[in-house]
């Protein structure tokens, strides 16, 4: 009997662990929100975080978007050709990039680049007692480390998503006009006529949620890292995994919400 029950017990334990982790992350998120409104506010730290999360992520976001937009145009052209619908390339590239691929890919790239960096930095600070030093210097780590980074994610990632959407559409445009024989002005007219304001709004809203998730996971896993190099490594890995999964889950939920509007 135990032979049959032990896999179920392991599955149950894993599920309970996941619920407990979600609970701890929720408590951390509420604590972060509470500290946003507390003083002092570390403006300089916010500026540095905006530079790291936003400005320095532009190259990776731009390159990801341009290649994805180009590949999307090729795929839609090839797929559309099966039922004589090649002409829909501009519309599908626009809606695909803006409503789905732009926010998700930017979110995942931010999880890879920013979440890992935040988790490793804060975990190293914890291992080397810098977090304890902050406390003894009457500085709350939540206000000094977490709040500026999460606010930077909330502010910068929607902007990055907007830029990623534009560059992704540009990638599709370059491929379509350069190799697939589309007329330049017709392509642009079809793109902008087809997009609606709510498409852009949903894209930017997803960016804000994904940016918050990505930075929050970096801070949470960094603050809760184990000891030594192994602890820093585990925190970094865990933060990226959690951020990626939560971003994809949030994307599903948000897509459902916007779909129903």
């Amino acid at each position: 009997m135990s032979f049959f029950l032990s896999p179920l017990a392991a599955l149950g334990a894993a599920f309970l662990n996941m619920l407990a982790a979600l609970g701890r992350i929720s408590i951390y998120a509420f604590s972060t929100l509470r500290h946003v409104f507390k003083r002092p506010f570390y403006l300089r730290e916010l500026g540095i975080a905006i530079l790291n999360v936003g400005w320095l992520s532009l190259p990776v976001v731009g390159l990801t978007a341009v290649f994805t937009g180009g590949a999307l145009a090729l795929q839609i052209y090839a797929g559309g050709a099966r039922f004589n619908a090649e002409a829909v390339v501009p519309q599908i590239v626009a809606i695909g990039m803006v409503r789905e691929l732009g926010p998700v890919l930017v979110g995942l790239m931010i999880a890879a680049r920013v979440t890992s960096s935040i988790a490793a930095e804060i975990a190293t600070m914890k291992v080397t007692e810098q977090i304890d030093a902050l406390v003894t210097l009457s500085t709350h780590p939540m206000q000094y480390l977490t709040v500026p980074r999460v606010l930077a994610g909330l502010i910068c990632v929607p902007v990055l998503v907007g830029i990623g959407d534009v560059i992704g559409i540009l990638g599709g445009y370059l491929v379509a006009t350069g190799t697939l024989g589309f007329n330049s002005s017709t392509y642009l007219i079809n793109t902008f006529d087809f997009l609606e304001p709510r498409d852009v709004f949903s894209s930017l809203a997803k960016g804000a949620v994904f940016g918050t998730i990505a930075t929050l996971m970096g801070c949470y896993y960094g603050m809760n890292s184990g000891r030594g190099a192994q602890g820093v490594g585990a925190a970094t890995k865990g933060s990226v995994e959690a951020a990626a999964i939560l971003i994809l889950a949030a994307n599903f939920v948000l897509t459902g919400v916007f779909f129903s509007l």
Partner: protein
Amino acid sequence: MITLSQVKKSFGNNHVLQGVDLEIARGKSMVIIGGSGTGKSVALKSVLGLVTPDGGTITVDGQDAATAERDAFLARFGMLFQGGALFDSLPVWQNVAFRLMRGALKRPKEEAREIAIEKLRRVGLKPDVADRLPAELSGGMQKRVGLARAIAAEPEIIFFDEPTTGLDPIMSGVINDLIREIVVEMGATAMTITHDMTSVRAIADNVAMLHDGVIQWTGPVADMDSAGDPYLDQFIHGRADGPIEAVR
């Protein structure tokens, strides 16, 4: 006066502190000695609230550490961490003046920098160190910067966590002399944890030995050699044979 009364702390099945009773008189330098893993750091961090004790009380001048207003309470303390715990991203002078650049003790930037340079000079570092990053300094210099940061806001109480660990004997002597001079000069209450007996003799007014989660012996440093406590005797002479098991 800092008073620890029946302070207990466990991590799972590891009962680190099992009822620590200790008094540190105002203006005196108390050194806590004991083997690795005996809970010296936990006792020190419990006073600062970095570790929450499972039981017992800790008071500072009669004020309960658990219920005191955190910012005002912590403003009375300075701490030198074992590895320095300097903030990598900030230049040396901003590390030293960290407390003077934010919060209740905030000063204008130029004034904070001047104080930082003066404190660096006090610990034997030249002003040109001020604009370097911590990673550009040697271990001994980082300890001195940590010491400068601990004294920058002229605290009433200073904690030193293994101040000479990882330093050569000469640099250890320099740090020990600095600690003693600064504590006497500032009239601060000091609590140091170490297992370096040279440091103990250089820094301490009083010594307490932590073993098996309790204070095994405490008294003036001058009485340490003649105390007759077998645990203390084994520890200060570094003998493998005795009541303290060498393999823990």
